[in-house]
């Protein structure tokens, strides 16, 4: 796990190649690494640093600025509850309080079984769905206390497997950096690399 896999390293090199400056690839590579392990492992940050020609401290410093990047392990499902104005008026703090109680953790923490992390978020741009909740960056809402319980149960029982990928997977990364959707079949692996859908 920890280091970038050979396949991801290859992707990383291709991503680096599209930028005039190597260090511009820093954020896309962080997403790539997070897609691999669910968070940025130290070893992966070292790899990213080497690939971008910066120091590991700079990778960690940059990553730590962004809420969407995690430098510590998180649960399989990262649940972000918006508590900004629209959601707050719709009862966001009640939902968050309920979530903490139901999962037995404070916001920012992960359940002991490693399944859920709860976070308090600023406006997620889903005000029309207030109270808006994100699970691994997929939107749900409006969510009330009961809705939250159902959501958690569905997640725990794998009923949302098709909708919610494991934490860290951002399907847009590769497209947005202009890589060909399919790589020419080369190397022993053969065929186009499948996007990671499952974590098994």
């Amino acid at each position, binding site marked *: 796990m920890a280091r970038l896999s050979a396949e991801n390293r290859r992707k990383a090199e291709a991503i680096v190649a599209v930028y005039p400056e190597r260090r511009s690839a820093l954020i896309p590579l962080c997403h790539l690494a997070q897609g691999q392990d669910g968070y940025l492992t*130290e070893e992966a*940050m*070292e790899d990213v640093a080497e690939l971008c020609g*910066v*120091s*590991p*401290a*700079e*990778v*960690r*410093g*940059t990553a*730590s*600025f962004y809420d969407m990047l995690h430098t510590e392990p998180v649960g399989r499902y990262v649940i972000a509850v918006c508590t900004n104005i629209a959601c707050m008026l719709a009862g966001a703090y009640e939902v968050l309080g309920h979530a903490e109680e139901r999962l037995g953790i404070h916001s920012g923490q992960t359940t002991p079984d490693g399944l859920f992390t709860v976070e308090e978020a600023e406006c997620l741009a889903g005000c029309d769905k207030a109270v808006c909740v994100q699970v691994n960056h997929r939107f749900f809402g409006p969510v009330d206390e009961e809705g939250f319980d159902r959501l958690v149960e569905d997640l725990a029982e794998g009923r949302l497997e098709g909708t919610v990928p494991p934490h860290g997977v951002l399907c847009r990364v590769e497209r947005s950096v202009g890589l060909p959707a399919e790589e020419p079949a080369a190397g022993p692996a053969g065929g186009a690399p499948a996007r990671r859908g499952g974590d098994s």
Partner: protein
Amino acid sequence: MSETTGTGELTVTINGKQVVAEPGELIIDVAERSGVYIPRFCYHPRMKPVGMCRMCLVEVSSPRGPSLQPACFVPVADGQEVNTDVDGARKAQEGVLEFLLLNHPLDCPVCDKGGECPLQDQAMSHGPGESRFIEEKRHWAKPIVLGPLTLLDRERCIQCARCTRFAEEIAGEPLIDFFSRGDAIEVATFPDRPFSSYFSGNTVQICPVGALTSAPYRFKSRPWDLEQVETTCTFCGVGCRIVAQSSAGKAVRFLGVDSDPVNHSWLCDRGRYGFEAIHATDRLREPMLRRDGELSPASWNEALREVGAGLRQGLSSQGPTSIGIIGGARLPNEDQYAWSKLARAVIGTDNVDAQLGDGLPAEFVASLPQATIDDACAAKAVILLAGDLHEELPVLHLRLRAAAAHHGLLLVDCSPVPTALSEVAVALAPARPGEAAALMAALVASDDEVPEVPGVSAAAVSAARTVLSGLTGEEIVVVVGRTSVAERPDSLAAAAAALAKGLPGVRFLPALRRANVRGAIDMGLAPGMLPGRVSLDGAREWFESQWGSLPSGRGLDTRAMLEAASAGTLRALVLLGADPLADFPDRELATRALERIPFLVALDTLPSASAQLADVVLPAAGFGERGGTTTNLEGRVTRLAQKVVPPGVARPDWVIAVEIAERLGVDLGFDHLEGIWEEIEQVAPAHRGATVSAVYGQPGDGVVVPVAAVGLPRLAPARLDPMATPGIDSVITQGAPMFAGAAAVGSGGVEESEVIEEGGAAPAELPTESVTPSGPPRPSPLAFDADSWPVPAPPVPDAYSFRLVTRRSLYDHGTLVQASPSLAPLAPSQELRVRPRELDKLGVADGDRVRVRSARGELVLPVAADEAVPAGVALIGLNLAPVDQPGATALLDSDEAAQPVRIETVEG
């Protein structure tokens, strides 16, 4: 908006006063020049502005009316009106300060910075005086360890990014960065990668609050208990300007002073924290005499009588050529001159050598067409043929790195093993050890006759040639130093000669590692050389007219003296702060010599391995304990100042020279330092014009020798703003003022400092010849003769052997580092580095122990795989073994053009 006037200048109005400025200048700088201090935290004049802290907000006119702008980030524009002292600006500044103090712990009474803190000062001068914040402040564990010498108190940090920018932009070692965001933000390292940069202390020096503190100074003193003198660091040949600060008679802190031509206010951590060595517990405090085989304390009188007797006995039995003097690079110029004169005019020997076979030939250094550090940084291209400057001359490394990384200097690194500068080099062509001359000849050959260079790929040669093509000699500076002590110095001289021939007008900056080696050579502490960069034979008549008699012929260098000692033809040897056992690149020869010599005298500050074998040990006053001048590698003479008293009865080396001369019945002719300098200016041809008033009377950047070629500095340098290095202006200065016309001021305000005028240097007005009109003419300093440095025969190739390259390490087992408790543990352990493929061929794995064998000796040590080491080369750290154990020098034969070694597996 920046319309410029015809002259390329523009006019702005600052607080109602018209000021002329250059396009591109920042408001904050122009204001400062006109006497208006704008508060600031993140701005540092030696780094790119970032506009992060907003402390410098001022009102700037614009077509849409006045607006608040950060003065450190906005360049002046013609017709602009700037107001720093109107309600809007004041309110903004007060607001910023109130915000900065929200989470600040206000623990000034227990903070190292208290009393010299820009946050304190500017809170008083520009703050609101009160806070509306009544909530709980943020809490962090404090302090945390960032690196071996640096601690961080995150609560005090105001996120100015001076430290992180220094690490990235200036040092090129971004080991620290901001972590997280908002009020959770902290300066942090990556896990398990401590802030162990050689330049870490600079971040402590420029941190505008007490967030960064240094382990060696922490809680040692308060600013109001400190006194300081301005002096020059003598830990290496760069000669950075510093203030030495002491409290209760003990040196406790050195800070970098901004010397524009030298160190730009930066220091390396060895220079900065080396002050600890001054008060090392084992400093020599009193003379010692060997009685019944044991060294025991004696009075100066007894000791000097013994020295006089020992020398006289040598003189009467085998004449002056049986006496030798090794060392002197530790000494200030005046002391070197005194010893040079004592040797030649009193004892009558030319066996003097300040270098221990680990430098460059003296005639070579003295005659090189010289470049200054500024010349090298301003050149179009620099050819680097030296050891790793990061380890040997750290601040020169910084200057060249900045020039290459940010100002377009083209760097061609030809050092045998890539160095820390290789990263910013545009071409890498590592010369084969011992054969640099062949590579240099290929670099300057005409296009149709580029020879093949053994050991260097044609691609590398052509890449380097491409960089240099189209450049004239005048546009190129060569940084030449001893690449490795496992290779003979004449091969480097030959390499330089090849460049001088092929590139007319090229200049050289000698990378001389030992502190005052340049001074030693200039003062004639080298066989065949006399003070003022002249040769014994060329300047004989002149010096006889000045000094009386001279030795009849050229004397022995260190190696020849050691050989003569081991052969029994040398009767007496004086070690002037030299430790041949540790430093001479042939440990076996040095051991034989010192065991055999009948009479050995050592002048030193610390009991070196060699001093322990001496018959008489004389305690010398060391750095910070005496005045004088020192010469840096570019030939710049700057002042040294005394801050503390020497331990016990230790004396300056020149006083000891005068005393010894007296015991031999001769008056050396001086009784104070300035008197010696007066004589130097009078006698030494290269130093003519460097008058006592120019050298002693002037604070600042010193005088580059030869004055006739370079000129005297016209004006005292302007200083940086007081906030660039907090901690200098809040301390009482003793001795010469640091900047002409500048009294110490607090960092809350600024006094007008002198402005440097264009050009910087004026042609020297040399005093007209008035002395000895009928005597012999004053000789001129040596000129470089490219033909006198033949290429030494390359080593015989041997398919099984590697060529050894030695590399210095900033922290090593040298006496000064080991006498500094904070630095001593940082010396790395000894290892051998070889290319991974060659390790595979040998069947050894990374980390295994191997036996390195040469004709001289062998060493068992761990081996590391290193892709950067060229094929056929084995890299070994120098001076990394504890003194009583053999290190790299045990393998060296100083006769070899390049030391061949074999690597063998170790059983078991």
